[in-house]
């Protein structure tokens, strides 16, 4: 029998991302912010992105939720750094699950929430782009 201390609810990778979350926080000047909630479990996830030249240059998260929700958002923000907007739009929760080395079946929805938060952040970014054509061309012409 192994000592009780050696047991954790989730696998090593998930526990690591829960205990030492990557990219936790916000940006002063995010380019896109997505905040989504899961009615089923009450989790709320917020992902903030820095985007430059159609590429995600940085990502941060804040999560109200269980261990696997926190780990999922940590992993998701890790994964999408450096990806193009097009790539992020095709991002699937399955990538998070795989990178985390698996999640318990009842917790798969946490990775879905991360996908949704990401996509909401991209939508937010794109909505902002549309609403500030002036600024944008100014910046381009500068």
């Amino acid at each position: 029998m192994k000592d009780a201390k050696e047991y954790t609810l989730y696998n090593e990778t998930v526990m690591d991302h829960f205990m030492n979350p990557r990219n936790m926080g916000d940006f002063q000047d995010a380019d896109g912010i997505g905040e989504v909630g899961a009615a089923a479990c009450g989790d709320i996830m917020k992902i903030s992105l820095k985007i430059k030249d159609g590429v995600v240059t940085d990502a941060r998260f804040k999560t109200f939720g269980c261990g696997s929700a926190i780990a999922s958002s940590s992993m998701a923000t890790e994964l999408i750094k450096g990806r193009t907007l097009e790539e992020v739009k095709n991002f699937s929760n399955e990538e998070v699950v795989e990178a985390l080395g698996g999640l318990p079946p009842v917790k798969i929805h946490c990775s879905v929430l991360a996908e949704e938060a990401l996509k909401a952040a991209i939508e937010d970014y794109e909505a902002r782009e549309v609403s500030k054509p002036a600024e944008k061309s100014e910046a381009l012409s500068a």
Partner: protein
Amino acid sequence: MRSVYLDHQASTPLLPEALEAMTPYFTQAFGNASSLHRYGLQVRDGIATARAQVAALINAESPDDIIFTGNGAEAVNLAIKGFADANHRKGKHIVLSATEHPTVLGSVEYLERQGFTHTKVPVDKEGIIDPAAVREAITPETILVAVHIANHDIGAIQPIKEISAITREKGIPLFCDAVASAGWYPIDVQALGIQLLTLSPHRFYGPKGVGVLYRSRRARVTSHIHGGVQEGGRRAGTENVPAIIGAGVAAEIALRDLNERIAHVSRLQHKLHDGMVASIPYIKLNGPKPGPLRLCNTLNWSTEFIEGEGQLLLCDSNGIAVASGSSCVSKSLKVSHVLEAIGLDHALAQGNIIMSLGKDNTEEDIDYVIERFLKVVNTLRRMSPMWQEFEDGQIDSVINPRGIGKSFTQHAADVSGRPAH
């Protein structure tokens, strides 16, 4: 690192005295209690002793009123379904409190599929039932009233004496699930006027693998495990002899040490309660405050702006074992029906954890828990968009409202696109 086990409402370690008494029944006194030879008679004698010890714990009229089952849930099922089966000709309606354990609710729902109906009596904000409401719920069809002695999640102690005055007047047996309270609260079935009562010895330092149904001779139950004459024909199959022996010893010691255990544990309960409240902002105790209306060993907290499982996991990584929601249903994502029944705000129900104390916890344990729990909360709040939005004035606190911002529940509904359940 310190290890602090604060989940005694999930299970307790077996008493060394109980294990010692059990040990010969594994390899030496291994007979089947149904056998007529000395190996059978020897274990039969051991079981008889245990039956008397358990009867004494709850002051049952006779050891014959004690039926041993395989666990607390089976005892509850036998109490409700076995009683209903034996008495369905008298009526098909059951009255129960809204905060009963899932095994009570599940048994009653099963009976519903067999043509029974039931009335759930609500509880107040502290989780306590109003005896007058029990009286109102009783119909001429009612054959059983089920109200637990104390709630497993929020520790609310129910007014059993007042309720049994009503059930006695109406001539209806009263079933009290004492799984959460036995060993932590004095129980005298005769003085309390209880006809059916269930215990789970692993909750008071006895072994797993055995449950207890007390039923007075006035409350008939029929077996729901068929096929043998064991336990007076009320539960077929080979008895779990070692566990029954251990349950007897645990019951005897629980009775002997009851006052001492209660005194010790409630001192720690007060200390933990006061320490938590003093050091952690936006935290709320669910259920009655420590004192006569609350079970001495359990504290149920809602920590605002963060969620329960994360608290549990970070506590665990600090060597502190706590529960999140009802330990028996922790695989479920849903908010505990107990918290729903006391009308707890959705935001607070999410951040729920339960600490339940035991006889071996110390003052140092409590100091450690208070110190570490504050860190746990701070870590999770730093990660929580809710905390930030609260600090920004976007959402308001439920526990200590400032009158600015919308509610968490509203916010959650907004971001999820659906109302919170």
